[in-house]
């Protein structure tokens, strides 16, 4: 493995509150040194990072890789290449596959396929058997097989007693539960956020209460169950407030938000003329929700930015609105979208170290993964960003099999130019180099 010297970049490492110019030497897959004035050893590669930003490898803790079972939408290899292209060195993959990832065999299958992937792939096991919300899956055996968390993502655990038992049981294993908060009776058949826009468009609405009611229940259960709960894709102002209060009370709860909920609102459904790429669950909410999500992100209520990468085949999306599946593919847009929010200056108080924390350090800590740091001696998972790179989102050039994004055509500033996993350059200037 080649020795690499990353020379003269702005190095941001939230795990050590470090933000300064430094050189970074990678040797044998490990970060050997972070300091100024490092010399390139003979035979090593030097990356001139004079105008670049060097950060710990980004971790997307919420993706759907569709593998096994729905490989026509995405598979572990294409998903990993999309991740590398988007500046991620690791992703955590949800279990709503076919078969469902609810037993050690499927977890092991994913770990094995991950060996050929461009980035690190961490499986998330199902919380209940078949994602049916009826019986707790073999959390312990899956954890041994390599599952990093447990979730029925895509579905809530409807039965409160099952959720309570799952939280208690997982606490004994020290395992993290990730909850998709939705009361399906309240969201029944809804296709977008319930509000004035859904009323005008004549689409059935998903009220904010569908998320908040279930979230409130789970937070109450968490009070007595022990254990750790992570809230997936928070979308409403009410949810942010519930989590803020729970954290203030000392509950072990963390939360994530997606770029599309931070950037778009329900108006996007109307402005795009019912474009099914704006159909996502939880739905794009109102402007007041969007602002509350930013406030929650900046005050620490929301810990993580995750893509909820939900790839779909164009055939599945190119239909009437009600018939299209929910989901936005985000691996190749998340980092540039967030960088653009920062560089544009639209969000007061947003800093690059905050972004790196939400996209690397925090998810590593929550999932208990290596990475999220540029500590000497740690694995050399590194993302290098060019803040001046301008480009237009064009899904036709993606590494993902999917094309479903509401951001196509958007002009952005800032993108990853190197993704380094365990000391190997897997993406260089947009080209995947993992072979």
């Amino acid at each position, binding site marked *: 493995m080649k020795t690499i010297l990353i020379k003269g970049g702005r190095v941001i490492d939230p795990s050590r509150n470090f933000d300064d110019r430094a050189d970074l030497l990678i040797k044998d897959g490990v970060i050997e040194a972070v300091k100024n004035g490092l010399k390139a050893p003979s035979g090593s590669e030097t990356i001139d990072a004079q105008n670049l930003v060097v950060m710990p490898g980004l971790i997307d803790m919420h993706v759907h890789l569709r593998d096994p079972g729905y490989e026509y939408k995405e598979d572990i290899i294409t998903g990993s290449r999309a991740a590398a292209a988007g500046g991620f060195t690791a992703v955590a993959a949800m279990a709503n596959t076919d078969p469902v990832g609810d037993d050690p065999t499927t977890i092991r299958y994913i770990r094995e396929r991950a060996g050929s992937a461009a980035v690190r792939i961490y499986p998330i096991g199902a919380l209940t058997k078949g994602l049916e919300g009826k019986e707790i899956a073999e959390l312990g055996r899956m954890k041994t097989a390599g599952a990093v968390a447990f979730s029925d993502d895509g579905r809530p655990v409807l039965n409160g007693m099952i959720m309570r038992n799952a939280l208690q049981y997982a606490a004994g294993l020290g395992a993290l539960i990730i909850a998709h908060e939705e009361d399906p009776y309240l969201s029944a058949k809804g296709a977008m956020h*319930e*509000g*004035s*826009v*859904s*009323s*005008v*468009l*004549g*689409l*059935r*609405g998903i*009220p904010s209460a569908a998320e908040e009611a279930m979230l409130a229940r789970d937070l109450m259960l968490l009070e007595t169950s022990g254990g750790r709960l992570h809230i997936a894709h928070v979308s409403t102002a009410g949810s942010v407030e519930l989590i803020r209060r729970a954290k203030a009370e000392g509950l072990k709860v963390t939360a994530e938000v997606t770029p599309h909920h931070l950037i778009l609102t329900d108006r996007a459904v109307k402005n795009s*003329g*019912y474009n099914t790429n704006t159909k996502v669950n939880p739905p794009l909410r109102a402007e007041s929700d969007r602002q509350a999500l930013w406030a929650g992100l900046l005050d620490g209520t929301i810990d993580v930015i995750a893509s909820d990468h939900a790839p779909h085949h164009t055939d599945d999306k*190119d*239909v*009437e*609105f*009600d*018939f299209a599946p929910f989901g936005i593919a985000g691996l190749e847009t998340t980092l540039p979208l967030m960088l653009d929010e920062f560089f544009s200056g639209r969000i007061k108080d947003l800093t690059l170290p905050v972004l790196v924390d939400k996209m690397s350090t925090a998810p590593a800590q929550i999932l208990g993964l290596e990475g999220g740091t540029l500590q000497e001696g740690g694995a050399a998972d590194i993302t290098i960003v060019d803040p001046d790179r301008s480009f237009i989102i064009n899904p036709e050039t993606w590494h993902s099999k999917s094309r479903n994004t509401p951001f196509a055509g958007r002009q952005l500033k800032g993108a990853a130019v190197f993704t380094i996993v365990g000391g190997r350059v897997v993406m260089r200037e947009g080209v995947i180099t993992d072979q």
Partner: protein
Amino acid sequence: MQTLRRKDILGLEEMSAEEITLILETARSMREIIQRKIKKVPTLRGRTVLNLFYEPSTRTKASFELAQKYMSADSVSVAGTSSSLVKGETLKDTVRNVEVMGIECVIMRHPVSGSANYLARNVEASVINAGDGMHEHPTQGLLDMFTILDKKGRLEELKVVIVGDIRHSRVARSNMWGLQKMGAEVVVSAPPTLMPPDMEAFGVKYCPDLEEAVEEADVVMALRLQKERQEGGLFPTLREYAEIYGLTSWSVAKAKDDLLIMHPGPINRGVEISSELADGPRSVVLEQVTGGVAVRMALLYLLMGGVKDE
């Protein structure tokens, strides 16, 4: 004569008062054709239209088909229960296949909101929305305005009450947009469970008390109540609904003598409107249907122009 500068008729929200006026004026001259003994003009001879109905329809379908015949257009009609529609072919594929046979205009009714917008984006032919889900039913809105204009001589400053299941009604949506653009005041009346959430976007007044709503009203329009809504828990029983929100001689007792009573059909007699009112002297339910043919002739004429090959 002027033509519409648009490819499609998808809804009245996106239409201007000038465009609506042009359509209503054109419809008036079209009605003269319908009143003739020989109801046929050569205007759209050699032009082709597809009627694509993914939902059952009597009035709308018949009136579009008659409009096409009176204008001498050639047309084919495909219904949702026949053909490839039940064989899993997508909407896009179905219409693209028919389009290459030479179709210039597609009339579509579809149960999903936004499907007319989707279709319009994907075909070169003009699309006329004959009702998409709960979104819009622009030709119904136009024919309702045509009928009111005919009876009242104006639309400005009239008070129009729409009563019933506003939430699920595309007819209500098209009428709310259209009538207000034309200067009428719109008041809606319904139980809160049958109102769309966050109604302020429509700019109409809400008055849950029907008796109060129809006072000083010039027009009252009852909407069809779909019986499934009761199973959805949105109101307790049909008889309670009829008693509180049904149009009856009692509920309009305090209204003006020249109140126009309208209903887009099909009617649930004794539920949203009593037979006494539906068949009474103030009812224009059948005039609405006649106006429907004239309005649809006007739209075909204005969209297809009759002069395309020059």
